[in-house]
């Protein structure tokens, strides 16, 4: 006979209990409770014929694939076990009990009475297995458990590991540093990260991995778990894993994709690389006479820019246009965008006229270039200068006539009052 029990608790008795059980009898109870529970069994009464190693009568308790206990007799001896006060806990949600009596009983034995209950399993405490445990946080509830992740992570569809969204990392600077997520802390599991370096056509990207990397690997199989793959135009590099750095990789292209895959296990630190971009070199440039270039480098390559400026008192002359600075850029074909301009001495040009005034040049040739000087004066004695200044102006380094007294402003010539050229008769107070 087989009895199936699916309630969360119940009672099990030997045949005819509390009377003596019959000879030649065999009964099986199959107890099943929901997943997330296990079964606790304990005896209120136990009285079976005792025999060596329970060869005659016995109660055998089994889980799905193992015998948990075989009981007989009334009390435990050296060779036989009786349950006593001991509770028996199933490892899973199933427990099977088999009662058997042989063809004869020497005495009257009353059999057994037992109870079972379903008890909750705390998976968070028990699931230490890497394949089952929650990656970040575990939450137990009656009949089950669930996992959750730290801020910034997403629970993977396996409901256990925590991944990150990292498929859209774009780098457009000419140099930079790229690392696995959370580096130098262990990188997230179950993630596929994509890092793109996209630069203008004409640049060549070089990757330089740090000397040590830590990507989960296998001693015999090439990168079966986690790995880095690099796509650079038609070229592919990798997969890389383990602790040996890929070192320096010249990609020979301006567009690189770095793919990093991690599976659902492992605690590895990850990787870090720096990238730089170089282009075709341009010829060295010489500063113009009375000028300089900035920055001054031993080598200039694509996109490098040089600003040409002139010494004080000189202006950059490009074509017909004067300016303070001029910028040229190294092009992808290794040529400069423009020729280096010349530096021309600043010229204030003809000074502004002063109404009722004169301009006197201090140089014989009426120079108007840097550091040349002029003097404004008024038509004496009919006009006077206002404000009362020397009227001396010097051509400054920006090509502007400037006086120490008025800056770039001009004085004015105001009429002199009350002073006739022909003197009036003197006045004597009476």
């Amino acid at each position, binding site marked *: 006979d087989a009895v199936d029990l699916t309630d969360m608790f119940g009672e099990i008795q030997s045949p005819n209990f509390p009377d003596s059980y019959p000879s030649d009898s065999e009964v099986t109870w199959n107890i099943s409770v929901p997943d997330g529970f296990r079964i606790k069994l304990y005896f209120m009464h136990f009285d079976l014929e005792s025999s060596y190693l329970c060869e005659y009568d016995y109660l055998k308790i089994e889980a799905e694939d193992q015998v948990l206990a075989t009981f007989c007799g009334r009390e435990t001896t050296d060779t036989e076990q009786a349950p006593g006060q001991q509770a028996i806990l199933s490892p899973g949600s199933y427990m099977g009990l088999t009662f058997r009596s042989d063809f004869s009983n020497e005495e009257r034995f009353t059999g057994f009475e037992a109870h079972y209950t379903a008890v909750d399993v705390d998976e968070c405490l028990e699931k230490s297995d890497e394949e089952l445990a929650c990656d970040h946080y575990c939450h137990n509830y009656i009949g089950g458990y669930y996992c959750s992740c730290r801020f910034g992570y997403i629970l993977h569809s396996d409901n256990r590991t925590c991944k990150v969204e990292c498929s859209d990392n774009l780098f457009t600077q000419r140099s930079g540093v790229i690392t696995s997520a959370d580096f130098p802390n262990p990188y997230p599991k179950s993630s596929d990260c994509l890092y793109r370096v996209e630069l203008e056509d004409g640049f060549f990207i070089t990757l330089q991995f740090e000397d040590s990397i830590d990507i989960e690997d296998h001693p015999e199989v090439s990168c079966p778990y986690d790995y880095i793959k690099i796509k650079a135009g038609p070229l592919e590099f990798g997969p890389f894993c383990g602790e040996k750095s890929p070192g320096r990789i010249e990609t020979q292209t301006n567009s690189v994709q770095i793919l990093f895959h991690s599976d659902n296990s492992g605690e590895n630190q990850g990787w870090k690389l720096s990238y730089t971009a170089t282009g075709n070199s341009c010829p060295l440039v010489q500063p113009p006479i009375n000028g300089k270039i900035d920055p001054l480098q031993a080598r200039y390559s694509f996109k490098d820019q040089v600003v040409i400026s002139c010494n004080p008192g000189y202006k950059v002359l490009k074509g017909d246009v004067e300016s303070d600075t001029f910028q040229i850029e190294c092009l992808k074909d290794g040529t400069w965008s423009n020729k280096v301009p010349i530096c021309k001495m600043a010229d204030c040009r003809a000074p502004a006229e002063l109404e009722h005034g004169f301009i006197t040049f201090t140089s014989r040739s009426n120079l108007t270039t840097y550091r040349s000087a002029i003097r404004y004066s008024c038509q004496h004695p*009919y006009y006077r200068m206002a404000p009362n200044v020397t009227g001396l102006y010097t051509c400054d380094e920006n090509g502007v006539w400037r006086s120490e007294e008025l800056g770039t402003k001009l004085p004015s010539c105001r009429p002199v009052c009350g002073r006739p050229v022909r003197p009036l008769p003197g006045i004597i107070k009476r």
Partner: protein
Amino acid sequence: IIGGRNAEPGSFPWQALIVVEDTSRVPNDKWFGSGALLSDSWVLTAAHVLRSQRRDNTVIPVSKEHVTVYLGLHDVRRKTAAVNRTVEKIVLHAGFDIQNYNHDIALVKLREGVAMGPYVMPVCLPQFERELEGPHPNTLGLVAGWGISNPNITVDEIISSGMRTLSDILQYVKLPVVPHAECKESYESRSGNYSVTENMFCAGYYEGGKDTCLGDSGGAFVIQDPGTQRWVAQGLVSWGGPEECGSKQVYGVYTKVSNYVDWVEEHVGAS
């Protein structure tokens, strides 16, 4: 100018001849006065020179179209040698009283500025504290003009002579400032209704003989500042009694410019 002397060219470079000729309503309605150049485009004069000659108490200027200003002029017969300017704006003092000539002061803005030179230069306005006090009694000043120089001639005779009785050459005279109380008493003791206000001062000699006269109105009574040696316009020829110019015990009355410096600057600008 009565009892004066011929001025030398350039002695009074601020002296302006203001000619008003309005024949639109009255034939031959023409008169003139003097003014003093303050800057390249402003001339100071007396309000009554530029007031419309209508017979009422209104104080409105003549049309600026009818005014011509001559500068650098010495001999009125040679006006072509002088600088002449038309007028852009006339400003009469709003308080000018045609009954007693109080606030007899006006400004003329020239349509085009004049360049300075030996015969054209501005006169100074009272500026320093001692100048702003006004002319002190007994101080001598000079006043110039092309007005009547013969005291024995009447206005009718002037008109009938076609103004030939006026002085062709700019005349000037040296006159002392008369104590205000003395002048005020002199006029107010007469039968006429004269009023010498605090905006006027008198100048002249008790015994007469030297004076300003018709046609000299608006000209500057200038006093030399002892500190700066600059000539400062302290008065404007304004009015006198009905007696002949230069008569004994008759003083010329002048607008006291120092009372109007702020008014001038308000219209002309502080520069």
